[in-house]
C-alpha cells in the first residue's frame, strides 16, 4: 500500500481489506501491533475474515475472533446481570457503546473490544440505581473523597463501580457529557427515544448513538481510542444512514461535533471528505502510532490532552482541579 507504518495502515486495511495482498512481513507485524494498541484487533480480524493471508497471520486473527466472541458473551452476561438487579426499579436501562452494539447485533459490534458496562438511566433514578447495585455486589473503585465528590457534583456518571465476584466495571451515566462541559445534550430525549432490545434493556436510537460517539470524541476526551470510535461511526452510518441526524445533533447542541465525526470517519474508513485544517490536525492525532504500537507525535497528543480538560471545565475550575490533583500527586 506504500503508506507509512502508522494508524493510516490500519484505517486503509479496514477500508480496503483486499489491499493486504501487498503487505510484507514487516507491514503485517506493524498492522497487528497498531490494531492491538488501538484495541481493534478483533475488528480487524473480522474484517479480514475469509481473505487469504499468511498462515501465521491467519492463526493470530482466528485467535482474535475467538477472543472477541468470548468478550461479546461476557459483555452480554454483564448487561444481563445489571438488568436483573435494575428491572424491579421500573426505569429504562439504556446500554451504551460496545455492549449496546453487540446486544443489538450491529455491524459496529463485530469483533469490538468491550471493557466496562456503560448504561444510561434517568438522573432522578440515580440514587435508587446506585443503592440497588451496591446491594447486589458492586463496590466503589475510587475511595478518594475528592474524586468521589467530584464525580457526584460535576460528572455525567457515577463514580465507577466494580463487581466483587466478576471483577467487571459498570459506569452509570445520567447524560453523555460532563455537567461542566459547555454543551448540554438533551438527556431526556436520549431516554425517551431509546429502543427496547429485550424486556428491561434498551439502546439509544441510531442517531443518538452517533451523537454520543461524537460527543465522547470531540467534546470530552483527548481522542484516545478515537480510531475505534470513528469505526463505530462509520459502521452506524453504513447501517442506518444519516436521515434526521442533522436535526438531532442540533437538538443536542452537537452539530459541530457530529459534522466532524462524519468527515473524519469518511476520511479514515469511507470515501473521503472535504477536510478543514483542524480536521487534518485531528487525523494527525488519531493516527499517531508507529509500527511498534507506540504512541507517537507527543506534542500533538499533549495539545489534545490539554484541550480535553479545557473543554471539560471553565478555566478557574480547571486551575482548582489541577491544583488539587497535583497536590495529591
Amino acid at each position: 500500500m506504500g503508506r507509512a507504518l502508522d494508524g493510516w495502515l490500519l484505517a486503509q486495511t479496514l477500508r480496503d481489506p483486499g489491499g493486504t495482498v501487498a503487505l510484507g512481513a514487516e507491514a503485517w507485524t506493524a498492522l497487528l501491533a497498531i490494531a492491538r494498541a488501538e484495541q481493534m484487533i478483533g475488528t480487524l480480524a473480522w474484517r479480514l475474515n475469509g481473505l487469504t493471508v499468511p498462515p501465521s497471520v491467519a492463526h493470530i486473527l482466528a485467535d482474535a475472533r475467538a477472543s472477541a466472541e468470548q468478550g461479546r458473551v461476557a459483555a452480554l452476561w454483564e448487561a444481563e446481570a445489571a438488568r436483573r438487579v435494575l428491572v424491579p426499579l421500573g426505569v429504562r436501562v439504556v446500554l451504551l457503546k460496545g455492549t449496546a452494539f453487540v446486544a443489538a447485533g450491529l455491524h459496529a459490534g463485530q469483533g469490538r473490544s468491550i471493557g466496562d458496562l456503560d448504561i444510561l438511566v434517568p438522573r432522578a433514578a440515580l440514587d435508587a440505581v446506585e443503592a440497588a447495585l451496591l446491594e447486589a455486589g458492586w463496590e466503589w473503585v475510587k475511595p478518594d473523597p475528592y474524586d468521589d465528590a467530584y464525580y457526584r457534583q460535576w460528572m455525567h456518571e457515577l463514580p465507577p463501580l466494580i463487581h466483587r465476584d466478576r471483577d467487571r466495571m459498570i459506569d452509570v451515566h445520567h447524560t453523555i457529557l460532563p455537567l461542566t462541559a459547555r454543551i448540554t445534550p438533551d438527556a431526556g430525549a436520549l431516554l425517551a427515544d431509546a429502543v427496547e432490545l429485550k424486556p428491561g434493556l434498551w439502546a439509544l436510537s441510531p442517531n443518538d448513538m452517533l451523537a454520543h460517539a461524537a460527543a465522547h470524541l470531540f467534546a470530552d476526551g483527548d481522542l484516545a481510542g478515537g480510531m475505534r470510535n470513528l469505526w463505530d461511526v462509520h459502521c452506524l452510518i453504513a447501517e442506518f444512514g444519516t436521515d434526521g441526524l442533522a436535526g438531532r445533533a442540533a437538538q443536542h447542541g452537537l452539530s459541530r461535533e457530529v459534522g466532524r465525526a462524519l468527515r473524519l470517519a469518511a476520511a479514515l474508513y469511507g470515501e473521503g471528505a472535504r477536510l478543514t485544517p483542524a480536521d487534518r490536525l485531528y487525523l494527525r492525532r488519531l493516527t499517531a502510532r508507529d509500527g511498534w504500537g507506540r504512541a507517537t507525535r507527543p506534542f500533538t497528543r499533549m495539545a489534545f490532552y490539554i484541550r480535553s480538560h479545557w473543554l471539560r471545565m471553565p478555566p478557574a475550575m480547571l486551575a482548582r482541579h489541577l491544583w488539587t490533583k497535583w497536590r495529591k500527586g
Partner: protein
Amino acid sequence: MRHVFQVRIGPVGFRIGSDWRAPIAQLEALYAAYPKPVDGVPDFTVRLFAARSWRRVVRPAVMIGGDYVLPEAAPLPLAQGLLAAEMGMNLQMALGQRHFLLLHAAVVERDGQALILTGVSGAGKSTLAALLSLRGWRLMGDEFALLDPATGLLHAFPRLVSLKNASVATVAAEVPVDRLGPVLEGTPKGTIRHLVPDAAALAGMDVPARPALILFPSFGYESATRDVAQSEVFVRLTQASTNYVAMGERGFDALTGLVQGVPARAIDYPDTDGAIALVEAAWAAR
C-alpha cells in the same frame, strides 16, 4: 526501535525491540539455536524502553512494554535487561495468549507422554524440569503448559529455563557453562541465571504430547506422595492459569477434559534426589 530480535519458541513468535544493545545481544547469544517466527510475523511484540530519553544513558532503567502491559510494572536496571525481556515475553503470553489454555507449570515428556509439574512459586518447577531434562526427559517448558482445547494435547514452550537462588548452583553443577546465561543478582526474585534448553528440547519444540500425569511438588518436607481429588486439581489449576477466565467455555472444556483424563498426585520432597525418585515412582505408577 533501535535494536530488534525475533525468535520462535514452540508455536509462539516474539519480536523484542530495545533502546539498548545489551539485552538484544544476550538474547541473540542464548536463543542462537532457536528458529524465527513463521512467515516472519511474530505473535507478540515486546518493547524494552527508557521512560525518558536521558534515562537511556543516566542510570538506565528498562521499562517493559508490548502488545499487552501491566500498568504498574516497575522498571529494572539495565544489568537485568535480559530478565526484562523474559518478563515481557511471559507477560504477552499471560495476558494475550488466546489459542492455548495456559497453566503456570513446567512440562517434561517421555515416550510421547507429558508430565505436568505445577505449584506455587518456589515449589521447584523450573529446577525439577531442568534436572529431569538431564535424566532422559524432554523439556517442554519451565513456565507455561500450553493446552490446546481442540486436541487436548500439550504444546512445548521451551523458553530459557529461569533458575533462581539455590537452584542456580544445583543445576549449574550438572551442565556445561556455555548453556548458562549471565548471573543476574539482586532481581525482584533474587539471583537468577538462565539455562538454555538442550538440543532434544529444541529439536522437539514442534512436537506436542498427550498429558499423562499432573504432579504438585512441594519443597522442604519429608518425602511423601498423596493422590489429589479431581475437584482440588480443578481449583488449583484454575488458579494456576493466567487466561482461564478469558478463554471462557473453551477454557472450561479444556481444563475439565484434562482433570478428568489425567491422574494427579502431590509430592513432598526434602531435596532434589528425593524429588527425582518420587517423580519416577509416580510416573511408573500412573
